[in-house]
């Protein structure tokens, strides 16, 4: 099997976004913006208690309000045909599992009326105190049983991997190792806040429904919702050509989409529009769960690791188990003959966590890459050299060779560009006008998996135009442009010859945007369909397009190398920080990353994604933290004034580079994933730089000024 080809084409060109002009003109239609006639508006009711039962509903005043069409609660909500997923199954019982849970909705002629009337609905509860404390000493921690992709993937964690793993004898080695480290890191809840709030606009026409919904994957969403409403999948159409950011929070847009579809059933023939407010998002769109991570390292005096232990305790929701691969990166990063990873979860009375950019890897690598920096200090060698000494020849657990692994090259190239050489390892020794300065480094890793379910159809018309159809998603990443470039290369034509259609269920099925797998899966599928089309054109039509045009379709082909090679993207990230000695304020004037992501399809959009990930990593390092009040069970800082993300003034120079290479085994493009590797490691690089600047090791994120007062 030959995977790669050396055709030179549209790939690798820094093409402007195809959807750019439409977005700049405001002509790119987002879910809430579809011009629909005579819409009604839905405003949700959210539980004011964390745990309990609804004992009474009084909607009299709301229903008496002019313009109110209906008040939806568990008492009158349609019974769903499938309620296997608690997030889909809204309003199916009187049970309340977290504060802010949807307990109803008001549908009215105007948004203002719906919102006002929502405040008139009285709900009574039989309330129980919430249990939201994440601690490692809880006696109810359990090994997770996350049913990955709704049971379609085996495994304990949401990526299908096992909760625990072990090689050799960790405990014995830690007893005897020359140098040991035993430290615990903590990461808080991070909440999803894409620029476009989560929206759903639903219209029923008899037994058929159309849902305009901000989605990372229209087909998966349709599968869930059609099942819930007991209709054939074909009777539900999803439309989502443009998504204003998602980061994982629009993979399962279940609860708000269900609510919109239910609301629209009460207003037959009328579209029902539903957009969450920023505050509401903090209860219902998902978040990165908090973690407590114990890391134990054993090494010889030269820093060669002999033992790696990573024990993670993470929170999940009592109502639905979500467990992520916080230990996943640890299993693939460094060589050591004795190793063990464990994952335990605490089921709390909180909203359901979900996938968030680098789910597991980004939190896990904050711990591991901080610990490596601590080990470098303990052994007294340069942190880059320490990582080079521990570079594995094959995957440390599976033993498979890596398809490509250029971590060392990333570290070396990054060091050269950043100016790392000659760095004085001494801490708290550099001062400039009241600021302590320091530098830090950390490694990045993210797997390049494939998800099942993609098909593509390509049509060639007599005029020589190609239409490529696949139900893929552009969540702001540049899919519109990148897939057009891939199709042009596969068809050996120019991008101007290709018209791409994505983002709706009327198109061939496609996996969701997630796991940094989109380009891998969709690009491979398009390549396959292009090959078939070209073969058909030659064999059946002698190379001449018939007047009626021709088409070809293909499913994503198998790749035998997937079971023979470990496929990951890598990177090295460098940070320069300044810390005010008198107040502890932290600034990051410079971030620099060098990545091994295989062949880059579009340098312009790739660079944007890498810079965006590093910026989000900076935000994770310094700012982001959802503060849960244990008495009420809610996120206290539920708006943009109080939940801090990095502002423009917090972001200095951010440079992203990549190695010019191609992965020979992964797909015909030679491209690995790049959307998530760039957030993995950033927080550790910054924490390590803060330690270099101040001598203070912050092991609990975010690194706020109170932790740096000395």
């Amino acid at each position, binding site marked *: 099997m030959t995977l790669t080809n050396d055709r030179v084409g549209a790939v690798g060109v820094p093409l402007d976004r195809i959807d750019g002009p439409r977005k700049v003109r405001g002509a790119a239609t987002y879910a809430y913006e579809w011009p629909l006639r005579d819409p009604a508006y839905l405003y949700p009711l959210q539980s004011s208690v964390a745990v309990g039962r609804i004992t009474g509903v009084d909607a009299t005043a709301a229903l008496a309000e002019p313009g109110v069409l209906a008040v939806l609660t568990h008492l009158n909500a349609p019974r769903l045909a499938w309620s296997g997923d608690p997030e889909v199954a809204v309003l199916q019982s009187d049970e309340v599992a977290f504060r802010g849970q949807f307990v109803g909705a008001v549908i009215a002629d105007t948004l203002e009326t719906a919102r006002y009337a929502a405040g008139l609905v009285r709900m009574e509860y039989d309330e129980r105190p919430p249990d939201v404390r994440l601690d490692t000493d809880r006696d109810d921690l359990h090994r997770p049983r996350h049913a990955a992709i709704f049971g379609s993937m085996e495994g304990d964690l949401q990526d299908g991997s096992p909760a625990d793993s072990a090689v050799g004898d960790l405990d014995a080695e830690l007893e005897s190792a020359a140098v040991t480290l035993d430290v615990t890191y903590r990461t808080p809840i991070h909440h999803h806040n894409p620029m476009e709030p989560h929206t759903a606009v639903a219209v029923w026409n008899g037994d058929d429904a159309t849902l305009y919904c901000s989605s990372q994957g229209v087909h998966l969403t349709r599968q869930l919702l059609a099942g819930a409403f007991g209709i054939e999948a074909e009777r539900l159409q999803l439309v989502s050509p443009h998504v204003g950011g998602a980061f994982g929070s629009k993979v399962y847009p279940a609860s708000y989409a269900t609510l919109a579809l239910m609301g629209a059933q009460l207003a037959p023939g009328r579209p029902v529009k539903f957009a969450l407010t920023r505050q509401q998002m903090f209860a219902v769109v998902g978040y990165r769960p908090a973690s407590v991570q114990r890391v134990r390292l054993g090494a010889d005096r030269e820093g060669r690791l002999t033992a790696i232990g990573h024990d993670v305790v993470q929170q999940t929701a009592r109502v639905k188990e979500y467990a992520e691969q916080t230990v996943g990166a640890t299993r693939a990063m460094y060589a050591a003959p004795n190793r063990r990873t464990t994952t335990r979860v605490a089921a709390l009375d909180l909203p359901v966590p979900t996938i968030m950019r680098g789910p597991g890897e980004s939190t896990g690598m904050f711990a591991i890459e901080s610990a490596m920096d601590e080990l470098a200090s303990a052994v007294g060698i340069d942190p880059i050299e320490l990582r080079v000494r521990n570079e594995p020849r094959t995957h440390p657990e599976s033993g498979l060779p890596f398809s490509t692994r250029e971590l060392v090259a990333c570290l070396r190239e990054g060091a050269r560009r950043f100016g790392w050489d000659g760095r004085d390892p001494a801490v708290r020794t550099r001062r400039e006008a009241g600021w302590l300065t320091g530098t830090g480094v950390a490694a990045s890793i993210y797997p390049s998996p494939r998800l099942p379910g993609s098909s593509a159809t390509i049509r060639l018309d007599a005029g020589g135009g190609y239409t490529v159809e696949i139900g893929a998603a552009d969540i702001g990443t540049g899919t519109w442009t990148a897939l057009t470039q891939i199709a042009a290369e596969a068809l050996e034509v120019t991008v101007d010859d290709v018209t791409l259609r994505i983002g709706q269920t009327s198109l061939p099925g496609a996996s969701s945007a997630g796991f940094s797998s989109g380009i891998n899966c969709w690009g491979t599928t398009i390549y396959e369909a292009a090959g078939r089309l070209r073969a058909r054109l030659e064999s059946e039509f002698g190379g001449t397009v018939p007047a009626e045009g021709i088409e070809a379709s293909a499913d994503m082909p198998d790749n035998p190398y997937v079971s023979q090679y470990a496929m990951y993207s890598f990177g090295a990230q460098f940070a320069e920080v300044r810390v005010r000695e008198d107040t*502890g304020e932290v600034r990051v004037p410079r971030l620099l990353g060098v990545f091994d992501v295989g062949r880059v399809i579009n340098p312009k959009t790739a660079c944007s994604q890498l810079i965006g990930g590093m910026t989000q990593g900076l935000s994770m390092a310094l*700012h982001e933290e959802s503060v849960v009040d244990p*008495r009420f069970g809610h996120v206290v800082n*539920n708006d943009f004034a109080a939940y801090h993300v990095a*502002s423009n003034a917090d972001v200095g120079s951010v440079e992203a580079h990549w190695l010019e290479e191609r992965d020979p085994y992964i797909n015909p493009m030679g491209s690995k994933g790049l959307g998530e590797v760039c957030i993995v490691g950033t927080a550790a690089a910054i924490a390590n730089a803060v330690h270099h600047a101040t001598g203070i090791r912050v092991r609990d994120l975010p690194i706020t000024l109170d932790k740096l007062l000395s």
Partner: protein
Amino acid sequence: MKPFRYQRAADVASAVGLVAENPRAAFLGAGTNLVDLMKMEVATPDVLVDVRHVVSDRIEELPDGGLRVGAGVTNSEVAADRRIRRRYPMLSQAILAGASYQLRNLATTGGNLLQRTRCMYFRDSQTPCNKREPGSGCSARGGAERDLAILGTSEACAATHPSDMAVAMAALGAVVQTQAPGGNRAIPVLHLHRLPGDEPERDTVLERGELITAVDLPPLPLAAHSRYRKVRDRASYAFALVSVAAALDVSEGVVQDVRLALGGVAHKPWRAVVAEQALRGVPATEYAFRAAAEAELDAAVPLPGNAFKAPVAVNTIVGMLLALTQEAR
């Protein structure tokens, strides 16, 4: 959000009358804070009386050499005014340290002074809060305490006043001009806002229907050497953890006069009178600055979640006074 009536007042007197006679009426400036609170049903007025066009939107010279800032002047205009930047740089800096361009372009001087606390429990109508619902209890104590006050708190309330502008005005000794049903009065900014005591629902001493029409900035030569510094959790667009407005007059190494006020630490802009008194007439040394700052913060009663504020305040005062001393040389 509840339905409400919108009314444009014909003049100041009628605006005052409309609000004075209706306990469910409220003045509307730019609405950048009030309308947010109405959306969350934290504020639920029946009538909004728009006063934007009836109060002055100009900055005028006063006979004594001070400036009168109309209550309707936008925050952006105050910050950009050449006279204010020259005579009261701390005020311009304070305003620019707050909010965003968009908000500053809209928000008014009067409205800025009267903005409500950002305590998240006050803003969440589903948690008890003595300021929002007197007698219901304080959820902030024992909850998320990071942003709470450390000075002048009461059992009932530990909320902070969020304005940066007001901190600079308190340091400058600015005076608020008001019109009330009973007549006009002048209230120093320092006495406009209250400590919470057992009536945290009252932010200010203003009576029902009393409207701020202007703020007078007194002539204050030392304010030409003044600064505002805001310590916060990110580089912009965050409320102060601690802020300091400082003006210093040093001659021959001795403090002749000083103005100090703190933000982010109390229910009102906190004029550091203890520190000011300690500093007048003493040598301008780091030792003296630190001793004065520590004396001021002696009164601090921090909570477990905000104990860092006192040392940050001390260090920031010291750093600013040192910088101002350097500048004076």
